[in-house]
């Protein structure tokens, strides 16, 4: 596969690409998902500073 005989090595080569592709697909599928946390307490800290 890909000119590499050892399946442990071409496996790693393909797995690198597959895991990066997973990141791309995950990012695109969840592009606008995710809740927002209000962190008003930080404002008190900024004021005290």
């Amino acid at each position, binding site marked *: 596969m*890909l*000119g*590499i*005989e*050892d399946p*442990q*090595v071409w496996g*790693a*080569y393909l*797995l*690198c*690409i597959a*895991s*990066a*592709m*997973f*990141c*791309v697909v*995950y*990012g*695109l599928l*969840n*592009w*606008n*998902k*995710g*809740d*927002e*946390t209000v*962190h008003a*307490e*930080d404002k008190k*800290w*900024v004021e005290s*500073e």
Partner: protein
Amino acid sequence: MHNIFLLTIIVVVYLFMIGYLGYYGYSKTKNALDYLVAGRNIHPVVMALSYGATFISTSAIVGFGGVAAMFGMGLLWLTVLNIVVGIIIAFIFFGKRTRKMGHNLEAHTFPELLGKRYQSKFIQGFAGIVIFIFMPLYASAVLIGAARFLEATFPGMLNFNVALLVYVLIILAYVFAGGIKGVMYTDALQGSIMFVGMIILLVMTYINLGGVVQAHQALGAIADKVPAKLAQMGHQGWTRMPVFGSPSWWTLVSTIVMGVGVGVLTQPQLAVRFMMVKSDKEINRGVMIGGIFILMMTGVAFVVGALANVYFVNNLAFGKIAMEVAGGNVDKIIPLYINSAMPVWFVYVFMLTLLSAAMSTSSSQFHSMGTSIGRDVFEQVLMKGKSGFSTIVVTRVGILIGVLITVALGYKMPASVIAVATAIFFGLCASTFLPAYAGGLFWKGMTRAGATASMIAGSSVTILLFLFVHKKESESVGLCQFLFQKPVLFPMPWPVVDPILIALPISMITAIVVSLSTKKFNKDHLEHCFKYIGVTKS
């Protein structure tokens, strides 16, 4: 011979861009929240590029690229782990919880997150001290690498001492003034330069060697060139894994793949990045950029490092494998390959790539050291939050102290210790922090005593293993030889089994056993910590 005048102009333009972004970070820093966690409102692209550029230092490209020239493409398992652990697990599983818990508890540093989760000033102080004592080792290793690189790039213009000082002063200027915003905006530019540089390197290497499959076949065909000494240790060629259980296999799998791959989860300068975005949306977007970025960094470095052997063997001017061409010094392989196999214009591009990799890692290290000693140890633990000085002032003094120690180490640290400094810091962070960090995020039953015991057990076992069992570090420190008249205490394979494989399980078991037998936190505290966690609104 390179055109030093043109090279100088390129570097000056680059430094002006860095200076502008550092000033931009300074102008956007209005208060301590901005200085420590970028106002918890940083752009996802900036966050992901900054995370990646901080994660990948010059040693990941040059050092580990050289290691790939020695071990071969089996090192790509480290890239798999870098992406799976360093991006997928770190962002999706740890990152989102770290962000929410960090916001719930108003934590501004990694030690502060642990300290507030366990309601323990001891834990915050202990974590701050571990970071402050051991991060300068890692930081000075990056610093020395950068200074040597600058000295080699500008022969006759910069000697090592001047290069080290100039490098530190430039980074210190924008970290000191702009805080984490200065760090992250410059990181984003540096990460972009690294990304472009590595893509060009990969494409040109494959083109020069006749294509992807042809290049790999050519690498497989020179397996008979493996030196006898390496073959005895289990090396079977650059497109094959070493013999299972051989010393080469243990070194590759335990130290390089596991040691470096798992250690990334608990790097304080990386974990704190998740507390700098305002919602999970930014983290989701960061996953996409982070995954591609890491693939293009370590993936390319390891493939090109291994393929450098084909170039050197088939080139009549060399006719030897990369290790032999570099005189046995793995750190010289990638620079030698770039200088001899690539056109001059790319040598300049790659020089900026390496400079960016070093600066982006150093800047975050300086900031982390400052927050650890300034905010965590001095302001929060010693002065109990009432130092009389603002957090920005305290952190800036901390940054100065951290940088001074790093520079002193840079001038005085023995060469043998430089080589193991990064591995020591990564291994120590994983064994000391991972059970307390993961337990704090995922297990409500984790107790203060469990976290404290695991941190003490993890750090002390790791240090003992580095001093007396793991050959690479124990030989370079020399304490075992001094006390017991032998370099390591135990026979094979223990001298080549990375301490993380022993210390991390001990640290985890300690955390679980002690937590199951000690007093749990009250319900109110846990509800406060875990507010919004496990709740996803699309």
